[in-house]
């Protein structure tokens, strides 16, 4: 009985540690952000001017860049990952599925600087010389595809991020599909469902909330990715409707400027960027949780 109690105390302590770390993060980040937040006020979040020389700090363009690049990544990666995971669990024989899921997981092991270099030397030139001119010729009336095709920019960043989160999303989606009892599939088939209908009714509908969870985790990874993004996004603090234009993300500025910042206000503003990133991911997580719960209830 005594051992039981000790064991429970240890578990409690372990759970408490992660809570404590998160709280410490928030407090510390907020504390060191205060000077910059006080100096800039709300314009720190809404302003788009970032000029360390003039002590003007506005993170608006970085928040925009972070959200758009990660959403673009999700837009590309989610369909691919879900389709791959369906192939792995529902369609391919186990042997082939094993090989493919091993290969997809290998993608996750590639360091992000390698993705970044590949982005600079292979992906961006490809986008500049073929993909973007194609889009520009046919769809330049859509603001998304206007402006000169530079290669380096928001589109490169979105594609790189998509490749980087695909293994995470695929692995999670596969686990979600595997957790659905075979009985469900058999029941659908017994009612005369075709293969497609089985996947739709028995697998995808049941997997909905699990898939949302997977997407949120993938999104979190895309929000914080730094090295690969900064190498291909063009590092310009601007808000442009065009996906061809350069942009900038919160994590990238933080990594770029922290090492060489010496003025107190600049350092504080960089901490405030970290705090903003923490805030953005927290809001997304909580929002998604709330949404999923509401979806389940109704």
């Amino acid at each position, binding site marked *: 009985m005594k051992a039981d109690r000790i064991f429970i105390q240890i578990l409690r302590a372990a759970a408490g540690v992660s809570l404590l770390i998160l709280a410490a993060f928030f407090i510390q980040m907020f504390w060191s952000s205060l000077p910059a937040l006080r100096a800039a006020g709300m314009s720190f979040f809404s302003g788009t001017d970032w000029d*360390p*020389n003039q002590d003007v700090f506005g993170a608006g363009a970085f928040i925009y860049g972070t959200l758009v690049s990660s959403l673009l990544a999700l837009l590309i990666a989610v369909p691919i990952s879900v389709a791959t995971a369906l192939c792995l669990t529902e369609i391919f024989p186990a042997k082939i599925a094993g090989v493919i899921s091993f290969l997809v997981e290998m993608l996750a092991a590639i360091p992000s600087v390698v993705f970044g270099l590949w982005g600079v030397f292979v992906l961006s030139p490809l986008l*500049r010389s073929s993909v973007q001119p194609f889009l520009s010729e046919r769809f330049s009336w859509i603001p998304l595809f206007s402006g000169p095709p*530079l290669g380096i920019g928001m589109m490169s960043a979105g594609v790189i991020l998509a490749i980087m989160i695909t293994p995470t999303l695929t692995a999670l989606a596969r686990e979600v599909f595997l957790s659905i009892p075979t009985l469900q599939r058999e029941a659908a088939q017994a009612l005369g469902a075709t293969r497609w209908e089985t996947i739709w009714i028995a697998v995808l509908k049941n997997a909905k909330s699990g898939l949302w969870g997977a997407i949120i985790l993938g999104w979190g990874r895309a929000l914080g990715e730094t090295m690969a993004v900064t190498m291909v996004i063009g*590092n*310009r603090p601007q808000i442009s409707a065009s996906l061809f234009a350069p942009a900038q993300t919160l994590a990238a500025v933080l990594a770029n400027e922290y090492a060489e910042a*010496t003025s107190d206000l600049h350092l504080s503003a960089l901490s405030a960027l970290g705090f903003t990133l923490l805030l953005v991911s927290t809001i997304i997580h909580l929002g998604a949780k709330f949404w999923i719960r509401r979806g389940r209830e109704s």
Partner: protein
Amino acid sequence: MKSMNRFSLLLSPFVLLATLSGSMVQAAVQLQGAGATFPYPLYSKWFSEFQKKSGVEINYQSIGSGGGINQLLKGTVDFGASDAPMTDQELAKSPTKIVHIPTVLGAVVLAYNLPEVKVPLKLSSEIVAELFSGKVQKWNDAKIAALNPGVVLPSTALLPVYRADGSGTTAIFTDYLAKVSPEFKSSVGSGKSVKWPTGLGGKGNEGVTGVIKQTPGAIGYVELVYAESNKMAVAQLKNSAGQFVMPTLESVTAAALGALKTMPADYRVSITNAEGKKAYPISGFTYLLVQKSGKGPKQQAIKDLLKWTVTEGQKMAPALSYAPLPQELASKIQSTIQGIQVE
């Protein structure tokens, strides 16, 4: 009790080893340094050569100039290293007096990607300031053409590429632009991170190089060493004497020579746009930052090291593409090193 004995018996060789290595550490002086990344290849060569000669072990972390200054101010390192001299505000934060010792020179070059142009382009300071302010859109602009008679310039769109990460390279380059263009000074200013009015940002020298190499029409600024090892096309710049000068080790050393007359006693000076017919205009010192006075064998080792770098060390610089100090300056620095006190 019995298990305790066995345990201590097991440990005894380690205890012996620990005491032995402890006494060995005491014999050799160990120095900790941190700072600039630009001179790192040369410094690591220097420090290993110096260790062979003197037995002094030096750990140098190339964490960036700003980081080096911060670490020195916090007292976590024995010496710092920076591409830009410390500002008055930074010096005021230090409880002790800090001495700047220039070690070698570097240059920032304008590298571009114009496959059609086979000869080195000629650019003037005014044009460079305009390029990086977004005022010139095409390569066949009349102003560029006027500087390059006989060169057929393409109508390619011009894309300026800058360093996105805070860096001494940006500091030297913007210092030069602010000096030659009052308009650039008021609209952009100078510093390690500035707000560029136009263009694309690459991370690090390798990032800027990558973008330039992959984008026809791009022009960006990188360190001389980097442009050389990547075999990039670089521009000749018009210096303050009106001569077009290629960035070479000789023209960079010449810039230091040109600035010698106006050199302040603490060497905290920008030598961009320096005087002299042969001077390359975007040159700069890189410094070691040390305490003016200190105690014991560590301070003596630092003093010996500095003395060695401005004499023997200089000979190793050109092979690694760093411009050595001009002779006149090196002797002046030697007397400054003599003034470092060992208590």
